[in-house]
């Protein structure tokens, strides 16, 4: 493999990593609070669709992100009401919500087709760092959306470990009755975590649109929200590790686009590379098999027993 091909592979991999990273961080916070949110695949699709609507009608990156964010908050409130308020079965509700959201975006997409806009996110080479050979080109010469997403990783870690709110959120997932005894509302902390998680996933969908064609295509999320479920397990619910895992999966996703430039792999059918990220996620779950979910994950809070 030539030097240029390798650098191009990593550059594309970093770009593809971003939507997955945002979805994974969202899932991570939600699961830390004890809610397994499979609905994030649907949140991503909704975020992507509405970001594309905003971008095609206003030509503004900010408008795209803002509408994606607003849609994320709204769907997060609906999901929090279903998962936490009503205490419904999280896996089935999440799956059905995803089917619903994918159907809604597909139906709206057929009704309101959009024209491609191209990416609006400006590139920002970081001074000095981007001059480092290899590394600079691979990691420090990207669009502002990439830096923004990566900056959220330490923010999430600090939120969970360094703030009272974050610690209580973790407690809602590990030992909700202790949190309840201490006088805090388990439902409140879980609901907020679900809203944050859904919003991050919707932003991931928005970035998927804004960093590429500026146009929504039906089914473009392609299971990224589901891959995030696997990422979170192998990352053991730590944001920093999630970044690493997402980068690896992003690079495996990049292979399907970059493999033509690599002579040795040219004869392998492209479908192998398309399937590879999903196989990587299966492998991640197998490697992380001893991982222990936060104790109260998928168990709705119905008040103190006895």
């Amino acid at each position: 493999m030539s030097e240029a091909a390798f650098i191009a592979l990593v550059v594309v991999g970093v770009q593809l990593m971003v939507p997955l990273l945002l979805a994974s961080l969202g899932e991570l916070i939600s699961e830390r609070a004890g809610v397994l949110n499979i609905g994030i695949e649907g949140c991503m699709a909704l975020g992507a669709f509405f970001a594309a609507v905003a971008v095609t009608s206003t030509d503004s990156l900010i408008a795209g992100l803002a509408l994606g964010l607003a849609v994320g908050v709204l769907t997060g409130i609906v999901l929090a009401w279903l998962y936490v308020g009503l205490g419904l079965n999280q896996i089935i509700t999440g799956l059905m919500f995803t089917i619903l959201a994918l159907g809604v975006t597909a139906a709206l997409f057929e009704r309101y087709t959009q024209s491609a806009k191209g990416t609006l996110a400006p590139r920002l080479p970081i001074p000095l760092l981007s001059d480092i050979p290899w590394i600079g080109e691979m990691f420090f010469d990207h669009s502002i959306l990439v830096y923004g997403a990566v900056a959220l990783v330490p923010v999430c870690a600090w939120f969970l470990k360094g703030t009272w709110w974050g610690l209580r959120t973790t407690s809602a997932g590990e030992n909700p009755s202790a949190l309840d005894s201490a006088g805090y509302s388990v439902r409140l902390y879980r609901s907020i975590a679900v809203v944050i998680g859904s919003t991050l996933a919707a932003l991931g969908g928005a970035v998927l649109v804004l960093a590429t064609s500026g146009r929504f295509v039906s089914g473009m999320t392609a299971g990224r929200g589901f891959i995030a479920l696997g990422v979170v397990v192998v990352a053991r619910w730590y944001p920093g590790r999630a970044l690493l895992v997402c980068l690896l999966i992003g690079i495996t996703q990049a292979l399907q686009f970059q493999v033509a430039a690599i002579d040795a792999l040219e004869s392998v059918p492209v479908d192998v590379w398309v399937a590879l990220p999903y196989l990587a996620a299966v492998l991640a779950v197998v490697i992380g098999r001893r991982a222990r979910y936060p104790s109260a994950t998928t168990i709705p809070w119905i008040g103190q027993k006895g």
Partner: protein
Amino acid sequence: MRMDSTGLASAPPVAVGSRRDGWWKAAPVRAAVRLAGALALTAGLMSVLVIALGANPVETFQALWQGAFGSPFNVGSTAIVAAILVLTALAFALPYTSGFLNVGGEGQMYVGAIASAGVGLSLAPSTPVVVALLVSVAGGVVGGSLWAGVVGVLRAWTGANEMITSLMLNFVAFALANYAVSVLWPVPGVGQQTQPVIPAARFPELWTNTPLNTAVLLALAVAAGVWWILRHTRLGFKMRVTGLSEGAARQAGVGIRGITTTTFLLAGGCAGAAGAISVLGVNGALYNGFSADYGFIGIAVALVARSSPILIVPAAVLFAALRVGSDNLFANAGISPSLGAVIVGSLVITLLATRVLRPTAGKG
């Protein structure tokens, strides 16, 4: 003999809740009210979406009904889709009975379809009808079974979360189907379908000039077979016990690994049979993207039927009518067929929210 004299006989029981509570608080009435509420809520949500899409809700629902049952041809389409949904629902219900979540029915059905198509198109054209059909169906069943078996083995021996692995393998199966139509058995110049299977490998028709064929009988037979296995065999008993309490099952000497693997093999076989029907009973070849979410709708069918192999049959007819009806929406009302997925998703969520359905969580 009455025992009044000893004073041991108890007073006649007072009918619970008969005086104070009104008839509207009786359990069946409340269940019916909840069901009606769920249906009204779904219809309301759909109307909002239909209006957003610029169409008339009443006309849309009429078109939905017409599309599902309006002509003998449409009734036949509904029946054949119901057959597919019965099988994908069983693919979810079987592991669910053992306490596992198989959300990979879609992918298992795809692999079944690929295998059926592969067998059906490579048979010699002179193969007798019964043999060709049996061999092709068996190919699909084995394909789906092995695909789900991967999930079962990973769960049994490594403890990997079956919900996530089965979900991921769906996407691998989609890539495999793409490979089959584009490289393995392509039709030159078309690209989105494989070569057709031999005519002898197709299900014989049951009702002339409609899509209805003997595949429906296969689905009913499999549903009956699954019911019999669960209710009347040692294997089925072990599966149910494992679902109720894995610890108790282990204490009683049930080999959990074996049961897990067997459950997934059986489930995948059902989904694979669904794939076989879509190739041998509907399309005659493997089409890329042939499934209108049948694997996922099967989950909804199984939930509504509370995982009962018998109740799955009427539930599948209901969801098949929604699916086929919405496929014809575009022609009749200018609405996207994706509305079918929206109806399924919102119907199940409202059924959950109104407590008509109360599924238990999986092992996680």
